């Protein structure tokens, strides 16, 4: 695929993403120049802020959600082990702890090759991400606060 075709396809996918978000009723912010949409979903305990971007060069859609807390330096080894344990238990996506700054994100990537964002695709992305994050975010937070030990996290 030529660079021009990649740009055209990425723009089409971004337009389809915005249209699907409009139909879903989700309130979102757009950054058309970066092909980015941002929105918040209220989870069972902690609100989830999402960032979806269309990557023109790699032809993928990346959905990222940063947890609204940071692992302090003395908790990052436990955080790394907890992120590994959680990632192994999920079907799609991963928890990535930046061990240098303590930020933890959930990342779900989807190739846009031979496809676009339909209502069903958007529903899959959001429901998958919400289910996974909702299951683990309060536990990560409790691990940071010390109200849950690493052993308890691993057993939960």
């Amino acid at each position: 695929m030529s660079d021009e075709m990649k740009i055209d396809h990425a723009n089409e996918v971004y337009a389809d993403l915005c249209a699907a978000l409009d139909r879903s009723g989700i309130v979102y912010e757009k950054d058309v120049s970066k092909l980015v949409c941002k929105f918040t979903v209220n989870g069972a305990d902690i609100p989830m802020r999402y960032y979806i971007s269309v990557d023109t060069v790699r032809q993928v859609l990346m959905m990222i959600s940063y947890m609204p807390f940071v692992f302090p330096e003395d908790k990052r080894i436990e955080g790394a082990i907890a992120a590994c344990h959680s990632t192994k238990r999920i079907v799609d996506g991963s928890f990535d702890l930046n061990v240098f700054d303590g930020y933890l994100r959930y990342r779900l990537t989807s190739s846009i090759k031979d496809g676009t964002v339909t209502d069903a695709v958007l529903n899959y992305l959001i429901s998958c991400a919400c289910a996974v994050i909702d299951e683990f975010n309060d536990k990560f937070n409790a691990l940071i606060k010390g109200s849950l030990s690493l052993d308890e996290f691993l057993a939960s």
Partner: protein
Amino acid sequence: MADEKALLRARMAYDNLRAHIDGRGWQHQDFDDQLSLRCSVNGQDLVMDILLHVNPDFELVTLLSRLPFNAPQELQMEFAIASNILNSNIIDGSFDFNIYSGEMMFRLSCSYIDRELTNGLIEYIINCSLDTIDAANDKLKSLADKTIDLEQFAHMFA
């Protein structure tokens, strides 16, 4: 539980996967009843075993590749950090580290909701996975063999 339509689509996706692997001339072992197939590929440094699986319930194709070595027990913490360093730097897929067994598995999933599992899409799944594994497996092996330490590993991906 997937309905009949989802199972048919999964079967079509699996057939496309098999045809694609045949087209590459790779030998494969098929597990038709599990919609899975296994094959081996020579990377730049190490052989990569890959398992491709179609999940009818999620309309998802997953590529799994277990690295051919385990982290020693005393390096469990280093490997947990290393997998997070890798996952923070890659676009698609993840290195899943089993903190109990020391196994490291690369996993990349791709949904085929509202689209066919085309040759182009399969090519993306395989090429992206192999490139990502090839870029990291020798460094993880060096970490496991203790020929590099975690700091040196981290510098390679900084």
